């Protein structure tokens, strides 16, 4: 097979004052026709920089300072800008992580695809429109004639990513660079997009550089793998070799950190429920006015469940399933339309504002985004003590407790005097957990609390939660879109779809003998499910 791209000793310099001199420090790789190379690494490993350097899309201040990238016999890094521009989109194409923001919100999908032809001066306008329609059909978008005229906001995340792929394929590139193209998507959508990429690779015979942080995805599609850590390729080889016999300790750590579907030992649970949700409903109405009809979305539709003291209940579902609304209703950040939220016998859903303020501490939340959920102008001590002090705890006692909690979550008491920006994402999530604990809650609602973190950090935070669960007897409602994560921590799992509770049961039952079709679909869509299954089988043997 012909070599499409060969990168030789590429290094990319960061501006002065960055945490290290080189974003990428001398990496080499080759991609052949019809081959998928996965570049794997955690955030800051330089994997996206490598892709951007190839495309000539490096951010200002960052520049290639060594090495070559030979594409079709010439070093693309040394080409003048006009030639690189004509290469972009025609022979090397790229798709991005966030399909929500990667399309121009004010342009119709058809126009945005046809624009690729216009950019390279190909075809007449009618021919361009015809080809855009054909591409939309090829990437499997429903009702192509309608999609051509649609604006991005009228499409779902998966549909937008398909539109992006259509755009990238327009001029039949020899090399497709995909930068975390499925990270922002639901598992079932992710599975479809991966299948589409595999299928297109086969039909078009293009080389694919696929950037990801997820070894599950790697197991699903990679021919070759290159593992990057801090700008250096620590390991590369065939997918089978890297996944099964990883040589470098960093690769091993990453692989170990992946929730592989190893199920925890079933634990005996207490009978006494800490939370009982009964017949909960929440309907969102949008629009409505002089001449408009209101639209109704049943975010939570007659859901009942309970959590025992010391239990971790995983609430799993795709975006729009109502899992977050349910979580927010339990904390009473949204007031449900009907139903009860009983915490220690009190119905939180029925409390007045004044009574609610006194009972707020009973249920606390840990949020998804560790960067946005702490006030950047408040020291950690204040973040941890404001709640307890408002509840009437003496200041000295609250501060002592805050320091103790910081020790418990593994940050050390001296963290109290610092500001949020001085901490990494994983550390901030620990602060978020300490903040929730400071209120001495009966229940913690963790809404996608580890989703924004790198796998190795994710594993550490999950370890912490497991530790806290056994040490403090914590009850947790753990909301996540990721079944693998849920399997690691939870005692039972509840699956939601379109506002309804589809299935609820012990982790082993859900994973090993799911009763509902939707649960089976979700499990099948988990990337690398087969690979994880093989691993488990091997471990058992």
């Amino acid at each position, binding site marked *: 097979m012909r070599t499409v791209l060969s990168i030789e000793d590429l290094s990319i310099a960061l501006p002065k004052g960055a945490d290290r001199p080189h974003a990428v420090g001398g990496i080499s790789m080759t991609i052949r026709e019809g081959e998928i190379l996965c570049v794997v690494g955690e955030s800051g490993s330089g994997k996206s920089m490598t892709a951007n350097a190839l495309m000539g899309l490096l951010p200002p201040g960052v520049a290639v300072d060594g090495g070559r990238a030979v594409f079709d016999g010439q070093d693309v890094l040394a080409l003048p800008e006009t030639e690189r521009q004509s290469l972009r989109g025609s022979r090397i194409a790229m798709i991005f992580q966030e399909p929500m923001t990667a399309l*121009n919100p*004010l342009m119709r999908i058809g126009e945005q695809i046809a624009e690729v032809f216009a950019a390279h001066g190909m075809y007449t306008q009618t021919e361009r429109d015809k080809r855009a329609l054909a591409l939309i059909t090829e990437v499997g978008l429903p009702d192509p004639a309608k999609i051509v005229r649609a604006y991005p*906001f009228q499409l779902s995340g998966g549909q937008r990513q398909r539109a992006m792929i259509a755009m990238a394929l327009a001029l039949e590139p020899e090399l497709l660079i995909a930068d975390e193209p499925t990270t922002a998507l639901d598992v079932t959508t992710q599975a479809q997009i991966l299948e589409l990429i595999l299928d297109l690779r086969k039909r078009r015979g293009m080389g694919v550089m696929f950037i990801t942080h997820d070894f599950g995805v790697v197991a699903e599609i990679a021919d070759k793998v290159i593992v990057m850590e801090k700008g250096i390729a620590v390991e590369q080889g065939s997918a089978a070799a890297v996944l099964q016999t990883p040589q470098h300790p960093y690769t091993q750590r990453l692989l170990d950190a992946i929730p592989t579907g190893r199920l925890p030992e079933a634990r005996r649970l207490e009978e006494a429920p800490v939370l009982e949700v009964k017949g909960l409903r929440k309907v969102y109405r949008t629009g409505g*006015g002089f*001449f408009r009809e209101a639209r109704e979305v049943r975010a939570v539709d007659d859901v009942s469940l309970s959590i025992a003291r010391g239990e971790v209940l995983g609430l799993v579902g795709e975006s729009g399933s109502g899992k977050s609304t349910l979580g927010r209703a339990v904390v009473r950040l949204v007031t449900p339309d009907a139903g009860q939220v009983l915490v220690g016998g009190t119905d939180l859903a029925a409390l007045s504002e004044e009574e609610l303020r006194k009972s707020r501490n009973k249920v606390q939340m840990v949020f998804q985004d560790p960067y946005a959920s702490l006030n950047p102008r408040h020291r950690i001590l204040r973040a941890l003590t404001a709640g307890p002090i408002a509840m009437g705890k003496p200041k000295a006692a609250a501060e002592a407790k805050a320091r103790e909690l910081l020790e418990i979550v593994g940050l050390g008491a001296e963290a109290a005097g610092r500001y949020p920006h001085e901490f990494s994402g994983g550390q901030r999530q620990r602060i978020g957990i300490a903040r929730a604990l400071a209120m001495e809650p009966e229940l913690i609602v963790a809404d996608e609390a580890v989703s924004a973190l790198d796998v190795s950090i994710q594993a550490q935070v999950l370890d912490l939660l497991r530790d806290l669960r056994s040490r403090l007897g914590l009850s947790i409602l753990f909301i996540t879109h990721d079944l693998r994560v849920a399997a690691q921590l939870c005692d039972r799992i509840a699956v939601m779809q379109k506002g309804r509770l589809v299935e609820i049961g012990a982790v082993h039952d859900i994973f090993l003998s799911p009763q509902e079709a939707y649960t089976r679909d979700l499990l099948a869509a988990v990337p690398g499910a087969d690979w994880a299954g093989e691993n488990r089988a091997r471990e058992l043997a």
Partner: protein
Amino acid sequence: MAVLVPVLGRLAKALLTLLAIAVLNFFLIHAAPGDPAVVLAGEAGAADEQMIAQLRERFGLDQPFHVQLGSYVWNIVQLDFGYSFRQGAPVLDLILDRLPATLILTLTAFVISLTLGIILGVAASARVGKASDSLLTTLALLFYATPLYWAALMAVLVFSVELGWLPGFGYETVGANYTGLARVWDVIKHLILPASTLGLFFMAVYMRMTRASMLEVSQMDFVKTARAKGLSGPVIRRRHILRNAILPVVTLAGLQAGQLVGGAVLTETVFAWPGIGRLMFESLAARDYNTILGVFLVSAAMVIVFNILTDLVYRLVDPRIGARA
């Protein structure tokens, strides 16, 4: 049709708002010190009881309060804004007489400032950090910071008094009796100084806003997508960045457009431009309440009309707005 439906709703609300303004106006009259009849009689210099009673009867001031309110609102609905005794003419005639001059001035300033502001803003953003960008932003800051009346006076001093290039006051040359194209040219010559004085300030605002908005949008993901497609810099700026960056400029332009009738008082006064602004200024000095209230109502109506127009433009520029609501 889909575009028009929300507009009908807005129009209904707008009419209610206008009615509320009219009622507020009515209370304003009554909140003024003394009784209009006494004021009028006093101004006429014959303040005897009999004349005051006559005036009261004539204006219906002897009627109960709610009857007066009703007849005032009914008059407004019929577009009868009352009579100006100062000018000896119906208020509506006065306003309609002055309106064209004001609209010519403010619309010219509006179009010039918006067009130049956007063009210069785009130009500055394309050269960000370079000397030409610094020059443009500094000039904009200068225009923005200069008080309007000072700029107006300086313009008259330099271009009219010193250089004698352009007429310094008025709407057309008095007594010249130009007709046809010659008259148009005459008006244009009179228009240049006041329109550019009024326009410079807003041009600076539009330019700074366009530049900032362009720079912000150029950081967005879809711009990277556009580059990855192989589009050239100018095409990306025009088709992708500008279209998205223009939204806040539209908002601001809508606000300024609302001021088209009432917002040129200073300029009209300095350049002796016979428009609504000067009418208001003169009426204010002469306590000509009916005229002032008429001008208020027309200005308020204009603000409302341009708010609706801005909403419409928004819907045209951004497809998400109509569909989401």
